[in-house]
């Protein structure tokens, strides 16, 4: 029950939304977009790893060969 993963992703999300707001005030809109993309990709990598674990587990339990 890795609870920390949930808080990690929530933390990244909050950090990114704050960072992009700050960058918007500082007038650097495009950096804000970059930061959003970077955060999205990091979380996407985590999600993909987790989903592949899920599918291998389901395959092993339900006997997909």
């Amino acid at each position: 029950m890795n609870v920390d993963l949930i808080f990690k992703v929530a933390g990244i999300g909050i950090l990114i939304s704050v960072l992009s707001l700050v960058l918007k005030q500082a007038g650097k809109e495009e950096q804000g977009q970059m930061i959003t993309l970077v955060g999205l990709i990091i979380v996407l990598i985590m999600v993909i790893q987790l989903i592949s674990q899920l599918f291998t587990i389901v395959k092993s339990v339900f006997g997909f060969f």
Partner: protein
Amino acid sequence: MDIVQIVAFGLIGTILVVLLKQQRPELALQLSIILGVVIFGVIIGKIAAVVDLLKELANKANLNVMYLGTIFKIIGIAYIAEFGAQVCRDAGEGAIAAKLEFAGKVLIMVLAIPIIIMIVETISKMLS
């Protein structure tokens, strides 16, 4: 890991998802996917125990293993298709969810064909 901890975990996660939804809806969606996978990861141990028990019972009753294997495969396909369809529906993409369910149904139908053929043969043998 009893139900109380799982429910608490789900509620906390849902609060975080709602928090993230205003600024970053895409991250909120990914967080809800992670929540679903983690909760399923907790339950899979129990499911595996039930599946093994059923297999043992089937062996004792010397049923043909093919039938039970197909049933478990169908359950697995149904679960994965349902998981994907629910996630897509949460994100508001009803059309994609419907397509995933359609694909799941077709795959299950394909898996069920050998059993249907077996039934038809046994019936025709009985009648003739």
